[in-house]
């Protein structure tokens, strides 16, 4: 029975004095206050990776698992430390991108074109001057778009890029920045992506005698995308403060390629997304002790889902969501070594759909956080508490009861030596996720009696880094963390009655034990030749502890590999850049039970790119060529969603 079809489907508020000049934003200045350093990809390093979307770039972070349904338009979501996608907070220029419908942000929709930095924090950004929402997720991802900066004497910047390649990708984009006055600058960015999404994939099996049982190559169909992104922003500085305002609009039409199963090689699902928001931010240091920040956002999402497959149930649904968000964060410095902060956020979400029996939910969320940061010599300490009040209203049927939830977090770091940059760090954090509108109200499946899903995290780690002057080794850094996460009341689909009918229940328990190790180094073997290398490795044991009577009790949860890692090597020489990256995802199981019928092979891909920047009279010109999946491995990230074989991309960027 197929009745239960549900379509799948920042920044640096550092010391204000360092961002008073719009010209130069230094992220380094911040690290002094950070208790738990983050993982970051920024600037050139980010550009050099063969990544199309934010999701692709995240594969290089440790502890992250990406779910990729394949292709240019395929859905891509990330999961940090096996806690589930819904526990990850994604922030765009400081304000959370949320989706009350399913709680997941499709990171495939966020292009890297205008992104300057991606940073990932386990637990939370260890900064207490932030909105209450920043304290509310188990892991947080910050996407920072480019801010205008002007060289001396210039008051405009223009950048145009053209990318094209496999899957019939055509992807032009443009950026224009204009200095209105000494204190105000404007930025406009636009992008168009069009692709047929067609690619060849191959399924091959041999029989136990070693003879080929079958070997089929086919073309992935219905993976086309046509998308536009428009962004406009104003950035200003005032006396001891900054402000910005921006408008974002994303529009797309996509085919959903669907699972490849016996006798079905093409499906008819399509989805149209409109994702618009307006957001603004204002930060001011009132005096040496007190600073304040105000954020506001209005967002509108529209999703139109159609299933045109004449063999299946006709579906044509329209979902609309609106969101209003305001936040104020305030920090007071009691002593130079002791800060306290208090933040309050209000959020309103509404969802409408033209489905039968839809309950038209609205959600009011109030969040209040208090936090403190102490720096006592070698010890840095942060503690925060977040109170969340959630109230849902529905037009018909039972509304869930109001929730009041308190979640604490403690972060600690200790620098072992005076002369060496070697420190230990630890954190404890408790978070929860509210059941999404789909969990609570989706047609026959939703269950309005659901409780929130809780996660408790314990982390212990160490970091060592060293810089050298004019030597072969310029920089070296290694970090290692061990962690234990406990997910309880996990919201899982539970069979109800007969024939593929499900409901959602708070049944799951998962224990996750893991180790993340990452290291990076930069060497300068000869004159202008610089080589940067990064290696990261993750081990995770994520076991299902739901019920001893289940035949998958204590088995590894689906799609979490025990071993995964990546390596990046980048060489640059006089405007030439060569990048090699390798990603490994080890064996895993595609269902709860760890039996051979559910086994999924490891996959590993190598990507390379070469680029050259030319200085011209009018500005600069950069050309690059990429080859992805160099060894043309045939692999599935998700069962029955084949990934592309070797593919290519070329790009040309002009900057004036």
């Amino acid at each position, binding site marked *: 029975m197929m009745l239960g079809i549900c379509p799948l489907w920042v920044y640096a508020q550092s010391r204000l004095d360092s961002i008073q000049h719009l010209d130069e934003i230094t992220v380094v200045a911040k690290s002094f206050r950070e208790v738990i350093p983050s993982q970051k990809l920024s600037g050139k390093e980010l550009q050099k990776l063969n990544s199309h979307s934010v999701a692709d770039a995240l594969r290089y972070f440790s502890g992250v698992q990406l779910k990729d349904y394949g292709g240019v338009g395929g859905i891509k979501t990330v999961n940090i430390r096996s806690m589930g996608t819904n526990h990850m907070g994604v922030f765009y220029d400081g304000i959370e991108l949320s989706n009350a419908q399913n709680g997941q942000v499709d990171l495939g929709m966020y292009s890297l074109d205008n992104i300057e930095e991606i940073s990932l924090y386990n637990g939370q950004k260890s900064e207490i001057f932030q909105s209450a929402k920043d304290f509310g997720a188990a892991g947080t991802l910050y996407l920072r778009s480019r801010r205008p900066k002007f060289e001396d004497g210039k008051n405009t910047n223009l950048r145009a890029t053209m990318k094209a390649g496999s899957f019939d990708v055509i992807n032009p984009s443009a950026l224009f920045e204009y200095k209105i006055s000494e204190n105000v600058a404007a930025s406009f960015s636009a992008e168009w992506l069009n692709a047929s999404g067609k690619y060849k994939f191959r399924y091959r099996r041999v029989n*136990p005698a070693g003879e080929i049982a*079958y070997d089929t190559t086919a073309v992935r169909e219905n993976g086309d995308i046509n998308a536009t992104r428009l962004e406009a922003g104003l950035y200003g500085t005032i006396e001891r403060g900054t402000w910005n305002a921006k408008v974002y609009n994303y529009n797309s039409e996509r085919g959903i390629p669907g699972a490849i199963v*016996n*006798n079905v090689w093409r499906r008819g699902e399509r989805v149209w997304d409109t994702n618009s928001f307006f957001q603004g931010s204002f930060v001011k240091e009132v005096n040496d002790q007190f600073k304040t920040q105000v954020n506001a956002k209005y967002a509108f999402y529209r999703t139109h889902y159609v299933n045109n497959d004449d063999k299946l149930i006709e579906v044509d649904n329209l979902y609309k969501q609106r969101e209003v968000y305001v936040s104020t964060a305030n920090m007071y410095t009691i002593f130079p070594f002791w800060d306290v902060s208090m933040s309050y956020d209000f959020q309103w979400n509404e969802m409408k759909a033209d489905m039968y029996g839809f309950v038209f939910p609205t959600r009011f969320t109030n969040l209040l956080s208090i936090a403190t940061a102490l720096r006592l010599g070698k010890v840095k300490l942060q503690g925060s508490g977040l109170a969340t009040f959630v109230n849902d209203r529905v037009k018909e049927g039972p509304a869930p009861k109001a929730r009041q939830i308190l979640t604490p977090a403690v972060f600690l770091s200790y620098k072992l030596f005076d002369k060496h940059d070697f420190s230990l760090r630890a954190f404890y954090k408790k978070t929860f996720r509210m059941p999404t509108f789909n969990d609570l109200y989706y047609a026959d499946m939703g269950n309005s009696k659901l409780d929130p899903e809780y996660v408790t995290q314990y982390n212990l780690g160490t970091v060592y880094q060293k810089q050298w002057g004019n030597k072969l080794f310029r920089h070296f850094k290694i970090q290692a963390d061990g962690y234990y996460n406990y997910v309880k009341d996990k919201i899982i689909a539970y069979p109800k009655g*007969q024939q593929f009918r499900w*409901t959602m229940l708070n049944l799951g328990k998962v224990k996750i034990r893991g180790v993340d190790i990452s*290291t990076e180094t930069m060497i300068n073997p000869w004159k202008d030749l610089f080589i940067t290398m990064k290696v990261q490795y993750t081990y995770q044991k994520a076991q299902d502890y739901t019920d001893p009577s*289940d035949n998958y009790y204590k088995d590894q949860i689906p799609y979490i590999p025990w071993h995964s890692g990546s390596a990046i090597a980048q060489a640059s020489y006089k405007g030439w850049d060569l990048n090699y990256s390798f990603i*490994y995802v080890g064996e895993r199981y595609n269902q709860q039970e760890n039996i051979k019928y559910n086994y999924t092979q490891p996959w590993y891909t190598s990507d390379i790119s070469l680029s050259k920047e030319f200085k011209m009279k009018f500005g600069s010109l950069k050309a690059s060529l990429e080859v992805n999946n160099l060894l043309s491995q045939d692999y599935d990230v998700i069962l029955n969603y084949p990934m592309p074989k070797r593919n290519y991309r070329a790009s040309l960027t002009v900057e004036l």
Partner: protein
Amino acid sequence: MKLLFYISIFILSFSSCRKIEIVVPSEYELIGDGIQPDADPVGMYLVNEGNMGSNKCTLDYLDFVNGYYIRNLYSERNPDVVKELGDVGNDIQIYGSKLYVVVNCSHKVEVLDAKTGVRISQVDIPNCRYIRFYRGKAYVTSYVGPVQIDPDAPQGAVYRVDTASLKVEAKVTVGYQPDELTVLGEYLYVANSGGYRAPDYDNTVSVIELERFKQVQKIPVGINLHRIRADKYGKLWVTSRGDYNTIHSNLYVLEKRPGYTEMVVTDTLNIPCSNLWIDDDCLYYYSTEWNNNTQSNTIGYGVIDIRTKKVIRDSFISDGTEKDIKIPYGIAVHPVTKDIYVTDAKNYVSSGTLYCYDQDGFQKWGVRTGDIPAHMVFVNKEE
């Protein structure tokens, strides 16, 4: 630098490489019944539905002669079939020497040799559901009927397939989303669900005259019909799923009134019924209904005497082991030993279990199956 090197080595040594992908092999497991050289039926096929999109419809075989259970027989016998048996099995039947597996989301009926499980052919039928036979023809219900101008209301159809040529010969439009069908006399009776039209479910049984292959009547029964079985007394037993909310699942009996040729509902038993199996004069059934207040499934088992239409046993499991069964999903009764086979689909996305009960209701054994074990058919000894 050295450290980096060591870390790379560490990663490489820990991480295993891809292996050549071998067709998933069968597994053999002994069950407690022992060897019975003269067993007849000789065995029982079981089709596991597999969750939608997983392509994990698999075929298992319970061998009464040798006393073992074979998991995942299909890909061992047919290794060269691309993407194996397919997505969501929905029915399994034997006619003559051929075994027919209806694979719903692969839109096909797979035809195998009943003795060996080796593939003969496939018949493409979109969104096919159940199959029955009459005089050399197979009749298959399909949720897809004629492509009509009004896309909101495509009615379903019954396809007629010649069992010798294995080609679709004709189809006839019936009600909305037809599920089970059965032959009684010169007529084919089809239970229409209307499941795609919730809350405006269908409530009729379509009557098709087999000779002309024409729908001649629609009998109103109850909303969201599912199963329909004929008994040896000329009665039809029809189940409804209800609306999963205020209208409960039900069991109806249809009979001809004296002097008339048309079937009418004579009894509404007010027994929720998800699945049934008629053996001799006994109708074995179970029901699974979700209870919103307790947030759990209410499960019941029972036996009805088809002559009196009365419940004669309020459970056919007497040793308390019914609590092992999370979601009963299939039922079959051995025609000779009267052993009762019940499958447990558990959470739909992990291996299920096939349980065997003796006629006194004591559990004899349980064996691991594929995902969502559901439909069973006995294989008779060859003459």
